[in-house]
């Protein structure tokens, strides 16, 4: 996993609440066996009309949004299906961070697993960012510093965000979580010895 320490880039706003993973990547793109190459499928039904032509009204299709690497969006982003394809598609389309008032739990974990930083800000901060993107005509950049847990635009917007220290550490160092857990093998084996797994179920 690519480490996330600090990232500056163009931000795009998608001011909608409850964007579900079916919208982030529709089901017809889940048939593959690879985790790469899903960028073109991102927000497919919103980005393209039924005949495959781009929908000019969709926020991410505007010329000012091209090259964006930070997505600012509404509450409960990533709700619904557990499909990690949603995180893979965002990453493949060039996104490194997502800013929202809240995220669905599974999606949040999936992002962290892929070096895509989910940042929770206050709803009024997100609203302020929506205003700033609009005022800048879409030409708006942010810097996200995971080490310092801060977000700023260099023009007066500056705030801090919280993230649990385990996730922060894994992201900062781009660590392989499985490798990390395998270091605990002796504890896992001891746990298994303590319990007769798969027979009577666990003791309350």
């Amino acid at each position: 996993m690519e480490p996330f320490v600090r990232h500056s880039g163009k931000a795009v706003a998608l001011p909608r609440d409850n964007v579900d993973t079916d919208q982030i990547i529709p089901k017809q793109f889940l048939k593959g066996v690879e985790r790469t190459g899903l960028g073109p499928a991102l927000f497919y039904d919103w980005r393209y009309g039924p005949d495959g032509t781009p929908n000019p009204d969709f926020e991410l299709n505007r010329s000012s949004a091209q090259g964006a690497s930070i997505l600012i969006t509404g509450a409960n982003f990533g709700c619904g299906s557990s499909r990690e394809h949603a995180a893979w598609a965002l990453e493949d389309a060039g996104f490194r961070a997502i800013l929202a008032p809240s995220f669905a739990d599974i999606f949040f974990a999936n992002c962290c697993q892929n070096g895509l930083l989910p940042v929770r800000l206050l709803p009024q901060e997100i609203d302020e960012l929506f205003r700033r993107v609009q005022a800048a005509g879409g030409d708006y950049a942010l810097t996200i510093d995971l080490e310092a847990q801060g977000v700023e635009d260099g023009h007066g917007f500056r705030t801090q965000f919280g993230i649990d220290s385990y996730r922060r550490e894994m992201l900062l160092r781009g660590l392989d979580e499985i490798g990390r857990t395998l270091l605990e093998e002796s504890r896992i084996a001891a746990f298994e010895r303590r319990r007769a797994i798969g027979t009577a179920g666990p003791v309350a």
Partner: protein
Amino acid sequence: MTPRTLFEKVWDAHSVHRLPEGPVLLYVDLHLVHEVTSPQAFGGLRRATRRVRRPDLTLATVDHNVPTGDRALPIDDPVSARQLDALSANAGEFGIELFDLRSPNQGIVHVIGPELGATQPGMVIVCGDSHTSTHGAFGALAFGIGTSEVEHVLATQCLVMSQPRTFEAHFTGRLAPGVTAKDLILGFIGRIGTAGATGHVIEYTGDVIRAFSMEERMTVCNMSIEAGARAGMIAPDETTFTYLAGRPRAPAGAAWTRAVETWRQLRSDPGAVYDTRVSIDASTLAPQVTWGTSPGMVTDVSGRVPDLAQFQTDAERSAVRRALAYMDLAPGTPLAGLRIDRVFLGSCTNARIEDLRAAARVLRGKRVAPTVHAMVVPGSQQVKVQAEHEGLDRLFREAGFEWRNAGCSMCLGMNADILRSGERCASTSNRNFEGRQGRGGRTHLMSPAMAAAAAVAGCIVDVREWDLAAVPPLEPHPLAPPLHVVERGKGGEV
């Protein structure tokens, strides 16, 4: 000792180790795997030359991307076929039991786990699917994970997790006739919202829940994720034990007696404290129907599509505006009477035998409206066999329903079963998201009985207005076939 909730007991019993940064290494008792969210995980294992640590605690099936038509025919879509072949190759290579398309036990992963008795109280169960919450009906802690976590569990049999908060959803009173478990959970989601339980594990309590069958409890726990919760749980009781007794993967003999003794302790202690608590009077609930593009956009069948003025914030109003445009509905439109084109009776929410009986009871002696295309997709091949034994297939067919093989089918429309753009569907599934059942398709979630009534009427109707009192409930056939017993490790071949 401080009183603990059911969730805390199961959590504590599975904590292998607390990592210095705070989260816990949580042990997994049962890992369910399906074809869509696993290929990349197996690929990762292979690249890192890692093994599956406990193939004996891992169980695979095909459900999301399978055709539900004639199983003797080859699969039309070569891309889907490759995904199914990949799972079969991965299961073979890593020594995992697979219930494939030829297996009499194939079905939706959340239907077959309980049916086999593999799902048991007090377990930690995970699957690369958000509706894993279904298994919480047995007092298990069961939740969906992403593919990277699937790989992590395959390699380590553990997950790294921060402890979720607890949420008690307490139901008082009794359900009125014609109101079902599906209505209870939809009503609950409508009340707390689709992010109302984010970061929490819900425990459902109260007499209504106690009176529910296991299948009804599964319907409730299944939709916990639609309220934002990671998992839903119900403390096990005699209903749970009766359901599990004699199932192929349930303990037997002395082990059964010991297991039940242990399971009896799986309940929240008196005085246990939940982080959040909601109490709902179940007797006030009516049959529910969704009108929008999120399960929280729901109201009584006798209700109307809401007015924008009813919503507080700009964000809510713009979401409702979008939803109504997508659903082609005007504010104030009564839900009853809304014409429908399709009926889907299926999914891990409502495609178990009791769901099929409830729908069949409504259909007896009636016909699907000529304008409606209706289908039943049983949750598993075992459900299908049992229904056929009870004559439900004939009843459905004679009424004009298609009778299919098991799979997720039009719940997510990965196979050929999809809505065409503009079609309106009465569906017993769990998600009415834009495009979920097919691009441009419009989904109204409801209970099996309501969906069956809609099929006959050709429009959304209040099933309570139908005189079902005269129709005796459909009971299990006295000669119902014994559940197909599978030997361990023989899933694919039986």
